């Protein structure tokens, strides 16, 4: 059953220097109960995609269909019931909690907004804090008294307070220490199982995305260049960008690290103000051909639902 469908979504930002094409013609769907990974380097539009889906940003073009209902152009009031059903977890555990509110107030706020009866609040706050591995006596404390991992748990408790079905996890572990990342990932997996959640997991840490996702979409300069089942994508990458990206991940194993082949990319990501014509990756692609400048690099199925935007594979 499809939880979310994104059709030809684009998001442009007007800046003094011109128009930034942050998200360009992105389409994908997320099935109920699965985790879709969204990976790419900074500026590839993965965060903007997440924020546009949840309507913090107004989409420039395209459609967002949540559980069969088009939510692309709902007013804030019409959007309110959907805000109960989809939530977000943020990257920076130090910036995502209001420093002037106690933990209890932070977790209670969604209940206040969505009109959950007052007498239930305290019990639910205590329950939510226990659910994310915190002590319910800590509700009276302020965010700065907690470590990064604990704050991320508070953020998750806040998102869970409205009992959502879909959670967009926007780089939820990239600001955390290695030893804490695994705690949070395990917790997200446990919550997914016990609460039947659907995740969109946005990250640049490819090995963690592979671990948590059932399917993975790779983004480059606002577009999805490859989308496949996660095992398939990592063992059999097709797009030249995905191939280079995977060969760039440092492997925590000396022998494998020494023996594998690096496919270095030249240069850096071009500006989204002025993206290259045709295939946006052609300026760095080791297999670029003259015709790449003119082609229309759309995702096509290369077999078994493995989508790739490069026509030469």
């Amino acid at each position, binding site marked *: 059953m499809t939880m979310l469908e994104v059709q030809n979504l684009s998001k442009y930002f007007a800046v003094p220097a011109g128009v930034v094409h942050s998200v360009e013609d992105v389409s994908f769907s997320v099935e109920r109960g699965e985790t879709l990974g969204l990976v790419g380097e900074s500026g590839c539009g993965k965060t903007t995609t997440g924020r546009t889906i949840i309507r*913090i940003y107004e989409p420039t073009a395209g459609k967002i269909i949540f559980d069969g209902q088009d939510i692309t152009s709902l007013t804030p009031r019409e959007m309110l019931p959907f805000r109960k059903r989809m939530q977000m977890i943020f990257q920076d555990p130090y*910036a995502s909690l209001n420093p*002037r509110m106690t933990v209890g107030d932070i977790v209670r706020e969604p209940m206040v907004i969505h009109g959950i009866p007052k007498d239930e609040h305290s019990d639910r706050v205590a329950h939510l804090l226990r659910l994310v591995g915190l002590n319910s006596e800590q509700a009276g404390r302020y965010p700065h*008294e907690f470590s990064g991992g604990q704050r991320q748990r508070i953020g998750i408790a806040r998102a869970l307070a409205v009992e959502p079905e879909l959670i967009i996890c926007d780089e939820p572990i990239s600001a955390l220490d290695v030893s804490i990342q695994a705690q949070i990932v395990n917790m997200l997996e446990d919550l997914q199982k016990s609460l039947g959640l659907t995740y969109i997991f946005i990250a640049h840490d490819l090995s963690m995305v592979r671990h948590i996702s059932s399917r993975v979409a790779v983004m480059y300069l606002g577009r999805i260049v490859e989308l496949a089942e996660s095992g398939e994508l990592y063992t059999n990458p097709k797009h030249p960008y995905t191939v280079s990206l995977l060969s760039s991940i440092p492997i925590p194993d000396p022998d494998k690290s020494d023996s594998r082949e690096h496919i270095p990319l030249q240069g850096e990501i071009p500006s989204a103000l002025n993206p290259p014509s045709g295939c946006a990756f052609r300026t760095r692609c080791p297999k670029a051909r003259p015709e790449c400048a003119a082609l229309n690099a759309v995702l096509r199925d290369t077999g078994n639902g493995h989508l790739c935007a490069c026509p030469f594979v």
Partner: protein
Amino acid sequence: MYDPELFMPLPAEEKSSAEIPRPSRTYWQDVRARLMKDPLAVLGLIVIVIILAMAIFGPVFSQYEYDAQDFMVSNEPPSFEHWFGTDMFGRDLFVRVMYGARISLAVGFLASMISLCIGVIYGGISGFAGGKIDNVMMSIVDVIYSVPTMIYVILLMVVVGPGLKSIFITLGISYWAPMARIIRAEVLRLKSEEFILAARVLGASPSRILFRHLIPNAMGPVLVTLTFSIPGAIFTEAFLSFVGLGVSAPMASWGVLSSDSVGSLPVYPWQLFFPAGAISITILAFNFLGDGLRDALDPKLRK
């Protein structure tokens, strides 16, 4: 070399005992602790409290009335009976300076509070709305800002007429512009923080975001500006009274007292010295406190 007992596994409950929780402190408790470490700020605060106490209770306990005239003792120098001497009508200057403190401080606090209310709401809305609304609202502030405050205040006073109430109103509505600018800058900075995005994702209404999330987090710089704007208002009131646009006799503000004494300055210099000294000490004390507050609120020093 070690007791083998020590190599027994450590039970889980003893692991957590290694952790001594630190006492819970709110942001404002932190600020207060840092402020109390700044000797000049503490001095300023003590002076302000003393002046406030004298303004409130001084005239009550004094044996003289602020408007009681006694021509037998006019223009007396400071003495045991009259600590600050007397004026040309034989009124006790000590009680008049204390009474003047009531008016001057009331003007300072109230005018600042009025400007705070207007400034916070105006600046908050402007910064939060952003875009065209922000441009228009800030252009209005720029226009107000570009007219020298004094001209503006004097014009308003002439229109509204002198008196205590009109001073409050005039100062209040002319001091809000800088406050609005500061709030707007803070709101603009905070608006893109993730906790604001989180509130939007939760469906919080704009007013909830503004009053629950944005403004409480912008209060630090506001407090500093407020502390600096109080002496500004006191000084402006003194100036207005000095040029005859302030409160009228027999009421006494520090400006009125200074103004009254200028004519006889060469002969009875203490009549100017005490009210002018009171103004200076108060302004200095507020500036010390404001500097200390600014340091105490500085996020760079926060750990």
